[in-house]
């Protein structure tokens, strides 16, 4: 019948569900460490992604099956210092996609005049 979906579509829906479910769990994880661990595991389990890594201020969890380390990455310091023109070395590596993430946050500006 018309409602029957192809295997491909079913898998796509399943992936979408997986990502959305993982997204809804983020808010209940209280620490950067827990968030990092969870994100890496959750994304790494999605079909089409071999492994995922995450870099947050003060926390870095690298891709599974990778010997790369960014603990010594000088750019991480820049990130922590709040420099926005930050460049992640992984984006130059083949087979890697680097997604920078951030948020807008309200800042109160007080002028002396």
């Amino acid at each position, binding site marked *: 019948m018309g409602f029957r979906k192809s295997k491909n579509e079913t898998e*796509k829906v399943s*992936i*979408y569900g997986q*990502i*959305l479910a*993982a*997204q809804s769990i*983020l*808010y209940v*994880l*209280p*620490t*950067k460490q827990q*968030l990092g661990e969870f*994100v890496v595991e959750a*994304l790494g389990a*999605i*079909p*089409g*992604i*071999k*492994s*995922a*890594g*995450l*870099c*947050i*201020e003060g926390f870095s969890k*690298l*891709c599974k*099956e*990778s010997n790369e380390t960014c603990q010594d990455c000088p750019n991480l310091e820049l*990130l922590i210092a*709040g420099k*926005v023109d*930050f460049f*992640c070395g*992984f984006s130059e590596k083949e*087979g*890697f*996609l*680097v*997604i*920078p*993430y*951030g*948020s*807008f*946050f*309200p*800042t*109160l*500006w007080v002028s002396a005049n």
Partner: protein
Amino acid sequence: MEASFRRYGFLQIKEYGRQFVEYKQLVVNFANALAMTLENQWQQECLRTANIELEKHRNNLEELVEEQTGELRKLSIAVGRAFGSVIITDKNGKIEYVNQAFCKMTGFNHAEVIGKNPQLINSGKHPKQFFQELWETILSGHRWEGEICNKKKTGNYSGSLKVSRLFWMKMGKFLISLGFQWI
């Protein structure tokens, strides 16, 4: 209020296949949700720190108030029971407080003098210039000492009293301490 961009980090996806392209946008959204979560965590942390600071200040203030209240209580008892009569007026000269000794010496009770001017006990024996000089001395921040002849409620002169201390207090009150000494 303005908004600034705060970058939290990078999500690294390794060996993503063709299939990934179809849901790349969802992963980007996921990364943004992660940023918002971190933003919330950061703000909660700021609030927690601010609350701890506030609590610390509150405790310090409470301690200070308790200490000062204790001092004031002691002072109040001392003034209330002093042998010398004490009058406290506001900057306009209205009486705000008199102690028991004042009531005993003049015959007025509290209710009769609160809100009134110390002129109430003026015997009229001193010329206007006398009081003018007295107030000028006080208002210039100096201590005035001298003898004032006051009047009792009954109209009899209470005798000449030595004003041992009359000074301007920082809080905008005059504390007039009338010595108990009869001359």
